[in-house]
């Protein structure tokens, strides 16, 4: 296996060049994290609620085959057509074949990270299908020909000026107009026409319920509903880990999901689909795409508990200061950095290193995924597979030698302090020390802790 490039680090550096925008990004996501805290603290049972959610998910994964079979059986009874896809390509082919059966050429789609993961849009567009993303943030980035930078707030990397320019160009809004109310209204009018003309609606799935054979889709905008209820055909696409056993479990997850995501007590629309509407057709596509592999790995299977709230991103000091696009994968941030290497270890070998391992992600996760520990474990796996970049590997083996030879460690410390005192400019030179690219080295201490400790001992003991 070849060594990975410095993809995340390089992209993050580019993101940080626009300092004002980077600061705004950091502060805005921290604000969302603070709203999450207030929402969580409003429930005295928050921690127990997380525990229940975690246990329900752990239980479900331990009987995933049974619940998927139950879901399929009940969905069929309800008149829903169920499909199974081993990977993204099969998923895309299934969706496209449904469109072909209906001679459909106009599709509206609500937010679905699964279809991003499978690259459904380009697949359909190449085959002459018009695919319109209807979530406002998703529509914005679609017009910009960009992937989402956040799973809940897809356009969080953009300022209203960018969006004003974009809408001026594509939707004919006034030049220079950047009032969010005005721009949202323009998008509403534009997308309302798309909803009314669509042949087929595609949605994601937040939760599928084995007991009822139905599924729940959550939005604040109402875009999933407008699409699904107006089109003749509704295709809902889900990863196999989205199933939960019973409807009563939704009470637990719906209380956690939006509080964790944006600090709201619940999404505006939590829509429970169970049967096709009169004269309509409903399809449910169950997708594996690496999930069974993740399930078979005791170290990483916990990541399948994820309910895609985005709390781990909002709190992550690396995500906030590097932007979602620097992760070059559909799901950015800490959870994405666990999921992506499972799909392609070589392509995403950089991501488990895009973390300080501070553990904040694990602390806010509503289903108690040990995110930072899994990132740490990925580093071991990638190291053993030879997928760690050479500069990092050299540094690591250097450290290994240093820490296993106390005399060398003492010497290196003394040499380092001497060098930094005599030639501070050398230590701060980014070409020699990449750590110093955006920061200065601290002032070296006059004496090491070891020397200081020995001196204290001498004083005390005479």
């Amino acid at each position: 296996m070849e060594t990975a490039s410095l993809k995340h680090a390089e992209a993050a550096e580019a993101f940080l060049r626009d300092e004002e925008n980077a600061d705004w990004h950091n502060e805005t996501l921290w604000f969302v994290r603070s709203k999450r805290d207030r929402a969580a603290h409003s429930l005295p049972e928050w921690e127990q609620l997380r525990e229940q959610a975690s246990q329900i998910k752990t239980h479900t994964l331990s009987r995933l085959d049974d619940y998927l079979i139950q879901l399929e059986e009940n969905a069929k009874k309800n008149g829903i057509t169920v499909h199974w896809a081993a990977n993204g390509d099969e998923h895309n082919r299934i969706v496209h074949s449904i469109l072909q059966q209906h001679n459909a050429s106009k599709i509206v789609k609500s937010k679905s990270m699964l279809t991003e993961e499978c690259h459904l849009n380009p697949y359909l567009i190449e085959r002459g299908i018009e695919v319109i993303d209807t979530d406002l943030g998703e529509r914005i980035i679609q017009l910009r020909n960009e992937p989402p930078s956040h799973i809940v707030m897809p356009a969080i990397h953009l300022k209203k000026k960018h969006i004003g320019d974009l809408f001026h160009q594509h939707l004919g809004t006034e030049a220079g107009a950047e009032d969010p109310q005005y721009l949202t209204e323009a998008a509403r009018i534009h997308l309302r026409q798309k909803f009314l003309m669509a042949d087929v609606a595609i949605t994601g799935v937040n939760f599928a319920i084995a007991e009822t054979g139905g599924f729940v889709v959550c939005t604040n905008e109402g875009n999933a509903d407008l699409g699904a209820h107006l089109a003749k055909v509704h295709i809902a696409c889900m990863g196999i880990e989205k199933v939960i056993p019973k409807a009563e479990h939704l009470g637990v997850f719906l209380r956690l999901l939006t509080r964790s995501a944006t600090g709201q007590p619940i999404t505006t629309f939590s829509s429970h689909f169970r049967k096709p509407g009169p004269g309509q057709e409903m399809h449910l596509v169950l997708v594996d795409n690496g999930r069974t592999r993740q399930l078979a790995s005791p170290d990483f299977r916990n990541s399948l508990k994820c309910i895609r709230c985005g709390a781990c991103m909002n709190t992550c000091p690396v995500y906030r200061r590097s932007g979602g696009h620097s992760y070059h994968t559909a799901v950015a941030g800490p959870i994405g950095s666990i999921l992506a290497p499972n799909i392609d270890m070589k392509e995403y070998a950089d991501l488990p290193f895009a973390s300080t391992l501070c553990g904040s992600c694990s602390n806010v996760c509503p289903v108690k995924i040990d995110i930072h520990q899994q990132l740490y474990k990925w580093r071991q796996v990638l190291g053993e597979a030879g997928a760690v970049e050479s500069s990092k590997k050299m540094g690591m083996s250097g450290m290994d030698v240093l820490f296993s030879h106390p005399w060398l460690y003492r010497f290196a410390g003394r040499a380092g302090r001497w060098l930094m005192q005599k030639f501070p400019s050398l230590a701060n030179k980014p070409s020699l020390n990449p750590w110093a690219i955006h920061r200065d080295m601290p002032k070296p201490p006059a004496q090491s802790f070891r020397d200081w400790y020995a001196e204290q001992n001498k004083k005390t003991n005479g």
Partner: protein
Amino acid sequence: MAESTTRDTILAAIRRGKPDVQPLPATIGFAPNMASDQFADTFLTMVKNNGGQAIRVTSLDEVNAFLGNEYDLTLPVLSRVSGLDISNFTPAEDLRLLDDLHLVVLEGKVGVAENAAIWVDEPVMGIRALPFITLNLALVVSEKNIVGNMHQAYPRIDTSVGFGAFIAGPSKTADIEQSLVIGAHGSKTLTVFLLADAGH
């Protein structure tokens, strides 16, 4: 590859890889964080927090009067609340014509105090698109149907219906610089009438 084969492959892979059976939690859910006599007030406060308008009424006549003051009832209006006969719009087969709707009034079957989510299901809607496509939405909820939290709501709703939704406010978005804008795709306003129980 035939679909049945993919299904079997996925299920076989799950069986090979899944962990030993882990138990479900012994209990699911929690009691509400408020006494039941606070449900109504909390519910109304949360309706407002969600961007809706909250009105206490004692009869449907009051609902009628309020809507008459608030909206131009000569524009397309559809009420599916029995006893509130203000409809002037007959839905056609073509769902696209619903785009003209100015106001839809529906019965909310269950209201949740903690988050002001209101359960509206297919029997109540008649047409699934109604509460989403209308410009303005009004929901009438009986005070006796207010519960404390989501755990109390699920046993009260009929999950056998083809479609149902918890609606918690007007459609909204914050996708442009995190500025909250009410009225993204769905209804731009939500008015919730809390109807006092008969005999109060």
